[in-house]
């Protein structure tokens, strides 16, 4: 009988509810705010609107906006985590213990890293690509709209799982990459690591599907005449990123699957006994992890290439070199992973090889920076918010590049690896590169989606606050690292470190001010949307095709798919004089109907993940089965599209007069 009961309840138990006051507060706060949100939607009677316009939409722009909203909410969570980490280190010098227990602190930094990479940076990336890339390509949508929706809902399911762990069960304490044996069964039998594994696993499959979708979209859905070398740089960067996603994410999937086999079925891939080897895990996770860094940063490079050319009112300098540099980085990013563990004891030749390969990546990256600078040279630069983000990027990213080159020298890395110097370095490149890039992109393309611009001054202030906050938060960490402060310390004995940790904590507050200013910018712009309205569809005198359609972009993107002749097609059309398409150029178009399949698959994946974490096999197996059944059922459906006739399109484009 007890066996049956165990089968039903798995390892659910009351002891897994949070015990310490900080976590209890968060665990109560989150469901309460979720309930408030649900209540608000019900009160405003917005459920039907939400369902038809957003949740079941297959329009890439809508999916992109949903990605961005989730990512921005998660940015707040990740930032709160960062604030807690720095609060702890500001209050725990010497005998002081600080507000957090060691275990909570370790869960918080694991959650901070996991959330910031997987649910903020990846979310912003997928959001922006969905929002703007089809428009830049002159395409109607992604190649696979339904798969796009499934990707998003898997991403959302992973996000829910991470946050659920706060309410019930706790999160992993093993760091964002969860090295065994610390995350193995022997040292970590609880559900925290399983939450980490399954949230990444589910979101990771969504990412893989997105990578496939972007790749096919770029190769097959470009407007007629847009050869590869007439394609803007942003889609180029997404192409390279999607190749990296398709090659790297399966490694993550397999690695996490092996770790979960160790944990749930007692296998021995990564244990130190029975023939297993944890070094294998470290190699595998970085074979995904290093390309992942470039998956995030290359699209940001693409964004800046568009932003600089637009606001310098000049053709992008060295377009071809930019493409070659992207391709070079794509190849090189797969042969540098070992630089994450020079200190594991590999031979001198192995370390030297990976060190030199790592430095070689600095060459194409440097070339890109020179090309941007020479795009500014002899331009007419207006310093709007996206351009200020770009300037902040060059400063921050270059400093990160220097510390990166330093750490690429193995013999030098031995002195800084896994210290706060390393922490400062990767925040330098990820915040400076990825976050600044996506903030620039969101500001830049905002009017195309919502029909009004973001208030520029508030945007610039946000960028300034981020830049100053960044310096305050991370320069002290470089120094602390050189002083001997290793990463992930919740307590330290040397009181001389304290002032540096306090300055760093102040920096986090200034960054939070930057986030607040960005939020204020959005709210204020919404309030002033009439004054900020973009009535032309081309508010910055842009260069690429997305500026040729009205703002907000119609859900079918282009009434008539443009034929491309030049690299900066819209710029040249404007110089030649834009002509409206003739009536006979309008054709009937077919668009996918809304579908709840993505939402259902995401929901089932969430149930599956939760069930497997708690060993509820009787729920996990049917949930996985249902996912397959639902998708097969969908493939058997007919009439998944609806038609907009040429007549309707013509009328919409030319007003009622026609």
């Amino acid at each position, binding site marked *: 009988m007890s066996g049956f009961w165990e089968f039903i309840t798995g390892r659910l138990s009351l002891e897994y509810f949070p015990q310490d006051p900080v976590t209890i507060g968060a665990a109560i706060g989150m469901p309460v705010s979720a309930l408030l949100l649900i209540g608000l939607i019900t009160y405003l009677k917005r459920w039907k609107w939400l369902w038809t316009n957003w949740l079941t939409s297959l329009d890439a722009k809508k999916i992109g906006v949903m990605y961005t909203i989730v990512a921005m909410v998660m940015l707040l969570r990740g930032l709160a985590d960062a604030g807690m980490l720095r609060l702890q280190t500001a209050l725990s010098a010497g005998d002081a213990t600080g507000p957090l227990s*060691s275990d909570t602190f*370790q869960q918080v930094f694991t959650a901070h890293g996991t959330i910031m990479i997987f649910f903020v940076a990846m979310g912003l990336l997928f959001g922006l690509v969905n929002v703007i890339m089809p428009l830049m390509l002159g395409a109607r949508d992604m190649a696979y709209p339904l798969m796009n929706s499934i990707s998003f809902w898997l991403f959302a399911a992973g996000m829910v799982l991470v946050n659920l762990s706060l309410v019930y069960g706790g999160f992993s304490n*093993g760091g964002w990459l969860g*090295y065994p*044996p*610390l995350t*193995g*069964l*022997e040292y970590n039998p609880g559900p925290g690591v399983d939450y980490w594994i399954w949230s990444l696993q589910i979101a990771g499959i969504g990412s893989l599907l997105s990578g496939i979708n972007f790749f096919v979209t770029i190769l097959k859905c470009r407007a007629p005449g847009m050869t590869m070398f007439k394609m803007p740089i942003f889609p180029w960067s997404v192409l390279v990123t999607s190749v990296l996603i398709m090659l790297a994410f399966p490694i993550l999937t397999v690695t996490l699957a092996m770790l979960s086999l160790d944990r749930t079925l*007692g296998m021995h891939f990564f244990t*130190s*006994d*029975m*023939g297993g080897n*944890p070094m294998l895990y470290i190699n595998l996770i970085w074979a995904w992890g290093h390309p992942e860094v470039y998956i995030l940063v290359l699209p940001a490079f693409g964004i800046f290439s568009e932003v600089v050319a637009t606001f310098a*009112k*000049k*053709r992008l*300098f060295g*377009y*071809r070199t930019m493409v070659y540099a992207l391709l070079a980085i794509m190849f090189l990013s797969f042969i540098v992973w070992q630089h994450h563990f020079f*200190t594991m*004891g590999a*031979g001198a030749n192995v370390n*030297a090889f990976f*060190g*030199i390969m790592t*430095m*070689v990546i600095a*060459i194409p990256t*440097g070339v890109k920076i*020179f*090309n941007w*600078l020479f795009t*500014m040279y002899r*331009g*007419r630069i*207006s310093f709007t918010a996206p351009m200020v983000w770009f300037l902040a990027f*060059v400063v921050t990213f*270059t400093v990160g*590049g*220097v510390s990166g*080159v*330093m750490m690429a*020298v*193995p*013999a030098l890395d*031995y002195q*800084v*690896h*896994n210290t706060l110097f390393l922490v400062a370095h990767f925040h330098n490149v990820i915040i400076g590169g990825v976050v600044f890039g996506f903030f620039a992109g969101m500001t830049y393309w905002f009017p195309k989606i919502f029909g009004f611009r973001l208030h520029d001054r508030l945007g610039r202030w946000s960028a300034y606050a981020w830049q100053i906050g960044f*310096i*305050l938060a991370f320069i002290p960490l470089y*120094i602390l690292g050189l*002083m001997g402060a290793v990463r992930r*310390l*919740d*307590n330290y004995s040397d009181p*001389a470190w304290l002032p540096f940790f306090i*300055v760093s904590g102040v920096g986090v507050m200034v960054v939070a001010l930057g986030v607040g200013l960005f939020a204020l910018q959005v709210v204020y712009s919404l309030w002033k949307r009439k004054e900020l309205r973009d009535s032309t569809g081309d508010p910055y005198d842009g260069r690429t095709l997305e500026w040729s359609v009205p703002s907000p972009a119609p859900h079918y993107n282009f009434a008539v798919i443009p034929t491309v002749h030049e690299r900066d097609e819209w710029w040249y059309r404007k110089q030649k004089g834009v002509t409206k398409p003739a009536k006979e150029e309008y054709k009937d178009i077919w668009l996918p109907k809304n579908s709840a399949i993505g939402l259902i698959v995401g929901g089932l994946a969430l149930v599956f993940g939760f069930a497997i974490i708690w060993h509820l096999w009787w729920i996990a197996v049917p949930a996985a089965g249902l996912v397959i059944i639902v998708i097969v059922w969908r493939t058997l459906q007919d009439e998944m599209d609806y038609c907009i006739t040429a007549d309707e399109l013509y009328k919409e484009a030319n007003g009622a007069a026609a």
Partner: protein
Amino acid sequence: MKRFVGVLVPLCVIGGLLAGGWWLLNGASIDVLQPAGAVAEQQLALLYLTLFLSALVVVPVFTMLIVFAVKYRASNKAARYEPEWSENRLLESLWWGIPIAIIGVLGVVTYQTSHSLDPYKPLASDQAPLEVEVVALRWKWLFLYPEYGVATLNHLPVEVNRPIHFRLTADAPMSAFWIPKLGSQIYAMNGMQSELNLVANQPGSFTGYTTNINGEGYADMTFQLKAFKTAEFSDWVAQAKQVTPQMDKPTYDTLVAPKSDTRERTYRLTEPGLFATIMRAQSGHASHGGSH
């Protein structure tokens, strides 16, 4: 006026940051920049060389960024404007070429120092190295001195100017052994042995850390390396051989429990081959075997 403020505010911010930084750094002890051993000294020289080589690119980048941003601002109609100028083979070769040259130099340096500063490479000296076996435990450091029959917990007495040869393993999740004043860290992993060669060239007490997260007591896992002059070190060894507590398998087993323990202790090492026993147990060749 507005333009004046636009220049003044950033200058004040930068000045304030620099002054604050100077005030904080004045007199601070920065272990990596103040080495006490030959290995860390060479690594510091490498740090400065790398910074210098990077500066060859970074200084022009920052200069151009500022100059171009000021000169080609939209309001400056006097500046040349060439909206179509987007290719120049000479310039592009220049900024492929210069970084390639710099990375070429740094690559050679990298290759050489990867060999000369290989943690496994014995240090040149006319003295035989001090052999120390290191076991990372949850959450304390055990040091065995097989040649003297001595063991210590959380402190590591050594002799100044005599090379130290460490062999390391862990009876804990992967840990890492690092004494910033002496240089080079290395991972310590269960069931495996890694090696490290260091030397202290100044007497003194230097803090050591684990740099790899290994569970709840991670932050408590520090130790003191104490570099003694030859005579003092011999005295210490002689005294240590006389202490009552013994380090053998039963004592060792009491240390394995996951518990922070920052006290410094000294033992007589009475069980030869303890290090090998610990390592074997972890790799599953003896009775102790993980999770099954």
